[in-house]
């Protein structure tokens, strides 16, 4: 399976990739995107099985990217990995079609619980 990790921080993308490995998802292919616009392009070109995206990013933020994906008919499984996890944001994410929202800082156990239903 292929996982697209979208975050404007290279450090955070590496933390997410390291945590995926620690949570037992190390065998999957990883594609990285630097912002929402880059991720939107790569969802189309790379056809990932799951998108893990930050919320606050320059160029295009995560929620606008998700809305653009759903607006174009994409049903790719999508989860947020973000430093903000308010009830409002969780509701907004769910309304737009996100499966989950993981708040930073996170642990491998959090990833395992959120991603296992998607990746098995």
């Amino acid at each position, binding site marked *: 399976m292929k996982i697209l990790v979208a975050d*404007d*921080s*290279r*450090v*955070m993308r*590496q*933390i997410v990739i*390291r945590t995926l490995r620690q949570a037992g998802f190390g065998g999957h292919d990883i594609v990285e995107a630097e912002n929402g616009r880059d991720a939107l392009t790569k969802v189309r070109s790379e056809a990932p099985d799951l998108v893990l995206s930050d919320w*606050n990013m*320059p160029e295009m933020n995560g929620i606008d990217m998700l809305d653009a994906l759903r607006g174009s008919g994409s049903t790719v499984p999508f989860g947020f990995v*973000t*430093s*903000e*996890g*308010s009830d*409002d944001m969780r509701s907004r994410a769910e309304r737009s079609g996100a499966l989950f929202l993981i*708040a*930073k*800082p*996170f*642990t491998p156990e959090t990833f395992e619980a959120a991603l296992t239903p998607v990746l098995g």
Partner: protein
Amino acid sequence: MTVLDSPMTDDVVAIVEELWTSFLEADDMFGPVVDTDPDDRSAAVTISGPVNMVVSLSTSEQAAIALASFLLQVEVPSPADVSDALGELVNVLGGSVKSLLPGPSSLSLPVTVNGTVTHSASETADTVVEAVWSGHRVTVVTHTLSQEGPSGS
């Protein structure tokens, strides 16, 4: 060591501790300081809402490089990586502090600087937490910029 106490201090300490044990894989957020260099690298985020607040993090150049090296698993991180590492750490801290404040509010993208973040006299320092990571001192500060008064007053 906590050097300035406030009603938020316990929460901020818990937030720093969570970051230390998860992303920084540290057993403890305190311990002996080996690095005595001055704090010449800083990063900050701003929370805007009913309470406007700056959350900043300051540490030495040596510590900033060590943090980036650890987080990226590279021996020699680039200057951009060092700024990115500090920015992401303060971004995560800011997101957690934001959850303690009344909403709705928004979190800025992080800004990193060489030197320390200075504050005007109108800003109130709420909490100062001096944590230690791998022998390096890392200071986390929250400053209230302004706060809405009670409604109807």
